[in-house]
């Protein structure tokens, strides 16, 4: 793979946007800090270790889903199936571990593999069958929702027979070493997934194509690149990441909840756009998405700790999403 030709489509995407993205990240980070400070003043119960851990724990699943969604969104596509794919993978883990009684690692690998396979299906619908990503992944979302219910027999599958499974998300390796800092493993996994995805985006050929496809797919195609193959790889990668999210949520709940998942794709997309990734494609960062997911988690938790009426929590969350994207638009125009 010659780097010279690869750089051609990617160059405009990164050079004009590099500074702007860094700036957006700064803005998003500043908002996160402002929220943390604001809530600390608003409620003395907010800034305590156990509550911070609760926020991180609740950000972990949405964060991992948002990382998956970011990859697809930068290509100019969208993945509406992330939520139910997560559930589907959790159910697959349940079948492998609880119903078949296979070892823990097989369940984890099986769930991630199932995610990659489903992602590959979405990618095939988008590329080979030419179905717009919105429709292809909408169809996938519904199919997976139904399949999760069918495979599980519409009942939650519990992981009581798999010792250690709940520790994947609930346990704390960091807390074992530093008892004052009981960061749940789920959060550690979120950061690992984000670091890996960030590496893929910025340091690999696949990452360069993700940006290139989002900025000008036609140009990439005309320069002789097999865009279909790369796109399928991207959807499959996003699917595998949803598989990780599936393991995380199943571990946290110590059960695969087959009816859960719909609606989670929108929260993941919200985290992505708050983090400054453009829905038009070609622009975005994983760090931004990570901050976006944390903003969402801090906001919902903070409003709850302040005991703001639940109807208003929803209003505020919606308003923050609009403000975040509006601030981004203004900055882009300047």
């Amino acid at each position, binding site marked *: 793979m010659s780097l010279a030709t690869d750089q051609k489509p990617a160059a405009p995407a990164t050079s004009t946007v590099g500074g702007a993205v860094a700036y957006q990240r700064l803005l998003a980070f500043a908002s996160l800090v*402002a929220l943390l400070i604001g809530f600390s003043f*608003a409620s003395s119960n907010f800034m305590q270790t156990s509550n911070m851990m609760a926020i991180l724990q609740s950000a972990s699943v949405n964060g991992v889903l948002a990382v998956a969604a970011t990859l697809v969104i930068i290509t100019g596509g969208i993945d509406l199936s992330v939520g139910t794919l997560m559930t589907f993978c959790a159910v697959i883990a349940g079948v492998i571990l609880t119903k078949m009684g296979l070892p823990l690692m097989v369940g984890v690998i099986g769930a991630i593999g199932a995610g990659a396979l489903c992602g590959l299906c979405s990618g095939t619908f988008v590329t080979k069958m030419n179905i717009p990503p919105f429709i292809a992944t909408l169809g996938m979302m519904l199919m997976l929702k139904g399949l999760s219910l069918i495979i599980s027999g519409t009942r*939650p599958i519990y992981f009581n027979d798999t010792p250690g499974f709940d520790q994947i998300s609930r346990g704390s390796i960091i807390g074992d070493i530093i008892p004052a800092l009981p960061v749940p493993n789920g959060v550690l996994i979120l950061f690992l997934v984000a670091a890996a995805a960030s590496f893929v985006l910025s340091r690999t050929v696949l990452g360069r194509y993700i940006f290139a496809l989002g900025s000008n797919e036609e140009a990439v195609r005309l320069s002789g690149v097999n865009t279909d193959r790369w796109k399928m790889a991207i959807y499959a990668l996003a699917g595998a990441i949803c598989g990780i999210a599936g393991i995380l949520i199943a571990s946290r*709940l*110590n059960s695969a909840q087959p009816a*859960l998942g719909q*609606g989670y794709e929108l929260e993941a997309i919200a985290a992505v756009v708050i983090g400054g990734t453009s829905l038009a494609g070609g622009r975005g960062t994983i760090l931004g998405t990570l901050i976006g997911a944390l903003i969402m988690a801090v906001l919902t*938790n903070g409003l709850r700790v302040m005991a703001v009426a639940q109807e208003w929590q929803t209003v505020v969350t919606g308003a923050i999403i609009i403000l975040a994207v509006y601030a981004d638009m203004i900055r882009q125009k300047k």
Partner: protein
Amino acid sequence: MLSRRFILGALSAAALVGSTPAMAQDEIYIPLISKGFQHQFWQAVQLGAERAAEEFDVRITFEGPDNETMVDRQMDMLAAALANNPAAIGFAALDSQAAIPLLRQANEAGIPVIAFDSGVDSDIPLSTATTDNVAAAALAADRMAELIGGSGQVAVVAHDQTSRTGIDRRDGFVNRIAEAYPDIEVVTIQYGQGDHLRSTEVATAILIANPDLAGIFGTNEGSAIGVVNAANELGTEGVVIIGYDSGAAQMQAIRDGVMAGAITQNPVGIGYETVRAAVAALNGEELPEIIDTGFYYYDASNIDDPEIAAVLYD
């Protein structure tokens, strides 16, 4: 440029600070984590909890996820509630197993937990304020049998396949029919997520597919309304509809004669008893394992009786 976002953040933070209720030092705070909040049923539970809060001079909050599948969101709510150093907690579990680590955390912190609506498979909750859904649905089956003359085909529109109430009401009805009424056949059980529109579609399909149907049982407010809508849209007559819970539309359907009757729980009582039990626990009183908040069958003849009217909600 940088300041715009900062100002927005600072403003919203300031607004949040300004809106914080002044908290008295010795105030007793009891958060209730429910299974939902926007349905009329949960609003009635909240109303009962607020009544008890006023009576016993405690402060409560009432929260629940957008729908009954969002188990992890409910865990987030429980975690936030624990962060607020509550005196006690009221909890209606969507999945009791998933909640156990957090309930254990509450237990270790010496925070009494009172379960409501559905039980928790754990000995941590000191008591559970709930309806006996199996017995209530069996009563619906008895009334159904009576109204259709002891034989014929019936169908069930249930709200979901996974929640405790969904399973108990479906099984309570179906098992009672199977045990006591050999000439009645349950031809189909369909699920509408308790959503009015989906339940309407499900019920429409059932009515079209089963022209000889004698009766339909809807297992919650949304399911029952769906059945009523379907019967109205198709102009179906002579099918006995029995619902569950109340709400303005269902009560109207009963007054109009479209619906034969419905089971009502006592949601106000569930909320009230939960807070009352929490206060009792704080005072060191012994609590029964189950606080049965009761249920009733109501129809056009008794809908205005004071005893029934007190537990119905619009």
